[in-house]
């Protein structure tokens, strides 16, 4: 009897809690709207990250593959040669070197500092004059993700045997064609799972958006907690939603990996 009543009490209190935290005052909207923000920031940050990452990876691997040698060449044989063609060649080679240095700096700084600090620097310092929090978060997380994507893509390019590159060049393809037709398609297959994983990492990382007052899902749950003085319901709900999204994507990645493994080679 006593036990029965206590379970009933517990269920009732659970119901009350649920009502208090989600229904009352339409508080669930904090989480729904927050989820929208989280997804929006993640989605566009991933796109930005991939674009930036591919660009950086191509600059870095181009410099590694042909830039270094061209630079040595230029230093050893062409420096004194004042023909227009040679000056142009020197300019291109040194530009590549310069951009490679910029990329390295970018990778070092971004991967060497916490993303939440980067977000705060973006919001409070770099874009202090703007109040478009979503856009700033997209930029900050996109630029952050780009550094990790760059290393994923670069390792993908570098993992392709140099013989593939030589075979392409020996047929008469130029550097860009060889990259486009031979190297990137193979590299892409290899890194697709890692790229998908980057999305999973990013969606969790956006949970620090509250530091700049952006109301993402985490912040939404936290606002409910501060209104109702009960932490359990809102925080568990938020955690569960992250978990469901991540599990959904992990499943997708696994399926993708299996598909890729089963296809030729």
């Amino acid at each position: 009897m006593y036990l029965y009543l206590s379970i009933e009490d517990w269920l009732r209190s659970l119901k009350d809690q649920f009502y208090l935290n989600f229904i009352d005052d339409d508080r669930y909207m904090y989480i729904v709207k927050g989820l929208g923000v989280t997804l929006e920031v993640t989605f566009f940050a991933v796109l930005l990250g991939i674009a930036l990452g591919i660009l950086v990876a191509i600059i870095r691997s181009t410099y590694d593959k042909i830039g270094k040698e061209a630079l040595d060449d230029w230093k050893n044989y062409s420096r004194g040669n004042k023909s227009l063609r040679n000056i142009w060649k020197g300019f291109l080679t040194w530009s590549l070197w310069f951009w490679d240095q910029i990329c390295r700096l970018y990778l070092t700084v971004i991967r060497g500092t916490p993303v939440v600090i980067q977000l705060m620097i973006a919001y409070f310092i770099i874009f202090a004059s703007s109040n478009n929090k979503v856009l700033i978060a997209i930029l900050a997380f996109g630029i952050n993700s780009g550094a990790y994507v760059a290393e994923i893509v670069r390792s993908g390019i570098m993992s392709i045997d140099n013989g593939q590159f030589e075979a392409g060049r020996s047929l008469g393809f130029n550097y860009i064609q060889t990259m486009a037709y031979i190297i990137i398609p193979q590299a892409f297959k290899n890194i697709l799972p890692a790229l998908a994983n980057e999305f999973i990492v990013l969606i969790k990382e956006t949970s620090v958006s509250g530091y700049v007052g952006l109301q993402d899902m985490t912040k939404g749950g936290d606002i409910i907690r501060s209104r109702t003085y009960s932490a359990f319901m809102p925080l568990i709900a938020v955690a569960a939603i992250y978990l469901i999204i991540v599990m959904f994507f992990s499943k997708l990645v696994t399926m993708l990996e299996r598909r890729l493994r089963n296809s030729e080679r």
Partner: protein
Amino acid sequence: MNDNVLIRVNDLKKHYNNGAIKALDGISTTISKGEVVVVIGPSGSGKSTFLRSLNLLEKPTGGTIEFEGQDITSSKTDINKLRMKMGMVFQHFNLFPHLSILENMTIAPRKLLKMSKADAEAEAKRLLDKVALGDRANAYPSQLSGGQKQRIAIVRALCMKPDVLLFDEPTSALDPEMVGEVLDVMKDLARDGMTMVVVTHEMGFAKEVGTRVIFMDGGQIIEEGTPDEIFDNPSNERLRTFLAKVL
């Protein structure tokens, strides 16, 4: 001079580490149309470097290479145009694993020579039949044996209708029982008049189809001559030592 000259190499040098390593140390020779030049020599003698310099996969540090009358080491040459006319076959085949056999063979003619898909595929199939692999057109490289892969690599190069084919140890990565099928394809090519430069350890091939044999050591050409001259009456001491080891 001789109209038949296809490649003229003059004092070709390839130095590494500011001259500390001389992979090529002044190579001069000419290769005429229809010749099958076989390059032999001990490991590290510069055979690959020489071959790969011919299509500028290695950039020479000195000397000149003329191909069809044009100095290809000059910075004005369009390297990519030139490579279209010089096919290359690698020790490890280097087929493109993400493309089918047919795609491996047609991608370059279609993208570079702007051939139509139908024309490129017709030509590819004709060549596939020639190497008895007509039924594998839609297979992928991973589904082929080593010997089959190398035969595909050869016909892939042929699809660009090159004026010369360069081979770097085309049978060295093959199981012994597959060497013959690849050499047979190369012999057919030689018989059809294809100009070939072949780095190989297959002395039987050199004797049988080589029109000229070049013996390299220490980045230099030590001896060159007909197979008879090289194999039957080697005068040079280093060549004799080398032949004693490989024959």
